[in-house]
């Protein structure tokens, strides 16, 4: 469904964030991107929905080159790609429901939506989505009154309102504790398995990667240095580890006994 070809991003200040990155994503995959902070994970995800304009290369999403689309046509591509963020990126002072409804903005008449009214069918849908994620009772609250885990669920609900074919999750659990991290990733996984939404997710913890990923790519300084499956991570060699995380990285596998 998604094909990245020779993607390169050079920022205005000369920083090379992505170098000639190419990979495919099949329908229904749970692709995890790993790598150090600054390795280009976030840039990569944001290039896919053109929050960042790539310098070179192609991003073919359902047969259409997103990288070549003019700004005015982006709306139709973006609304099929949901996005979940590390810091949730909710409008803190708006209600949970308003935040979720905003996910539908790509579909409704832009001028009608300026008054702040959404059709009843969409409101009903939003409540259903919140209910599905177990936070329907929080709908009227201000977004910043919720706990971190709940806020990330609101973020997922907003993405789901888009009826996405693909969800980009940029370190969705990096600000959450381990229990919540599993819960949020579990939610993404069940969406992935039950509704077939493809997920591209950047993660830091390798135990999470091997638990949830169907496929893994490793980035280092904007280049792909590792390709494998979630299972491969378990057998990852020290060399491969140092390829991704650098020579000085020390590999720890906490709480795991030799069998």
């Amino acid at each position, binding site marked *: 469904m998604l094909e990245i070809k020779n993607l390169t991003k050079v920022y205005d200040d000369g920083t090379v964030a992505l170098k000639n990155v190419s990979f495919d994503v099949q329908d229904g995959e749970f692709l995890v991107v790993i790598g150090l902070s600054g390795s280009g994970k976030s840039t990569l995800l944001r290039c896919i929905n053109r929050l960042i304009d790539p310098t070179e290369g192609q991003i073919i999403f359902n047969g259409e080159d997103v990288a070549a689309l003019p700004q005015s046509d982006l709306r139709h*591509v973006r*609304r099929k790609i949901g996005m979940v*963020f590390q810091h949730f990126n909710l409008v803190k*002072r708006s209600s949970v429901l308003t935040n979720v409804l905003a996910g539908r*903005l790509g579909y409704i008449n832009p001028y009608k939506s300026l008054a702040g009214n959404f059709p009843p069918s969409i409101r009903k849908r939003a409540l259903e989505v919140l209910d599905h994620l177990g936070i329907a009772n929080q709908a009227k609250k201000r977004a910043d009154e919720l706990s971190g885990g709940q806020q990330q669920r609101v973020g997922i609900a907003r993405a789901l309102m888009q009826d996405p074919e693909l969800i980009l999750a940029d370190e969705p659990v990096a600000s959450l504790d381990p229990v919540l991290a599993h819960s949020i990733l579990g939610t993404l996984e069940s969406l992935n398995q039950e509704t077939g939404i493809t997920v591209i997710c950047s993660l830091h913890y390798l135990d999470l990667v091997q638990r949830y990923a169907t496929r893994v790519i490793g980035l280092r300084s904007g280049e792909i240095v590792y390709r494998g499956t979630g299972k491969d991570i378990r057998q990852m060699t020290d060399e491969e580890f140092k390829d991704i995380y650098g020579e000085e990285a020390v590999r720890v596998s906490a709480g795991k006994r030799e069998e």
Partner: protein
Amino acid sequence: MSAATKTKEKKPLISPVLSLILSIPVPGLGQLVSGKIRRGLLLIGSFATLAFLYWWRLKAIGHRQTTLIDIFKKALQLNGLFTVLLLIGLAGLYAWILVDAFKQAKKSRPEGTGIFFLILFLFFAVGWQISQIEMGKLTSRFSEAWVPLKKILWPWDAAITYEKDVFEAAAQILVDSDEAPPPVPEQKEGEPYLVANPTYGNLSRLDENNKVIPGSRINLKGSGFKPETLTQIWWADSIGNEFRPRQEGQYVTVITDKDGAFEYDLIMPYRLTPPSAVGLQYHEVMARQIFEKGRALPSEPLILTVDLIIETIFMGMMATFFGIILSIPVSFLAARNLMSSSWITVTIYYVTRTILNIIRSIEPLIWALIAVVWVGLGPFAGIVALTIHSVAALAKLYSEAIENIDPGPIEAIQATGATKLQVIRYAVVPQMIPPFVSFTIYRWDINVRMSTVIGMVGGGGIGFLLVQYIRLLDYKSAGIAVWFIAVTVSILDYVSANIRKRFI
């Protein structure tokens, strides 16, 4: 290793004795040269400033004296405590600085801070003298001040008047002439009656030394008045201006006997006859009984105060309103995050910020002085002044609200496929409204507060009335105005705090 660096740091640049010698002509120079640069500069600066201030105050106290000795003698005589205390203090400081210069140049000597407390104390002493603090006045004059203060604290008996019924009779008097004295008026049954005898005479005058030369004595006989009632004597000049004549500093009043009659010898009051007056000048003397009938009415000061407090609140509101409209566009120019794209916009940003800072640093009261010249006296001048200040203050607050916008939600809403307008509506506006509302209400609060004083320089609102009452020594009416200001401002304070709490 750490010990080595320590000794290296503490290594003196000059010997203690040299340091001391250097500090003799310039107190603090020794410390400066021995490497304690900040301490040295501070001591040199402080000592020089204090010495100058001391000299300046001595000259002010002992002005008109020419030689140093004479100035000192006169200062000693007029303000001995200050003169001696500061002289000893300065001498002590000088000695302390010399000792300090020696110590600072020695190895591993910890820096003492006591000397700076002495400097602070000396500045405090100079400040006390400069600002002419006399704590004694707080108590010695309190009993005098208590009389007007009492009226301001509880002015409410002046807030109510009663309907009046006036019972009066008048008699004409020919002034400064005896050509054609007016006739004695006819007496009518059931009406009060006043006879003056004679019906002509001289007014009181002022001689070249402004001493009063008493006028003619006129015998007043009244009858037909209400018995045993206080009766006021009034005087009206030839153009009908009424006033109450005084005798020995008191308003002239008489009390009628049980038949409703009275008799009184009135010395004709002082009244300047304008040189343009032509012909015979007939004045009028009146006897007046005033009865306060039952119905209570709000008094004039109360009505005026209410009128003007409403004017004041609306002045604040209008100024805030204009302030919002004008400051929103300016706030975009003053927001760093919006203006950082090129050197032109950065220049605009700095120019805007500078202008706003200058405008804001000038108090609304001063703007009002300018506005009064510009648009004339009245509430509009006050609104102009408050608007100018509000634009500067609000633009700064708004621009900071714009700078503090979280880019996260903008990115998130963009990612949903929203248009630019939708992004503004759903990611930018919700973040800006709360601070905007909060700052605006806060500003309204300030503007109403300011418009209570802006009238003092002619900008309309209640301040004008308050200043007038105080100048007329009408402390009760002033008290009513003060009470209304206090209540209005506290209510507004409470309301605005509550609204703001809800929006943050």
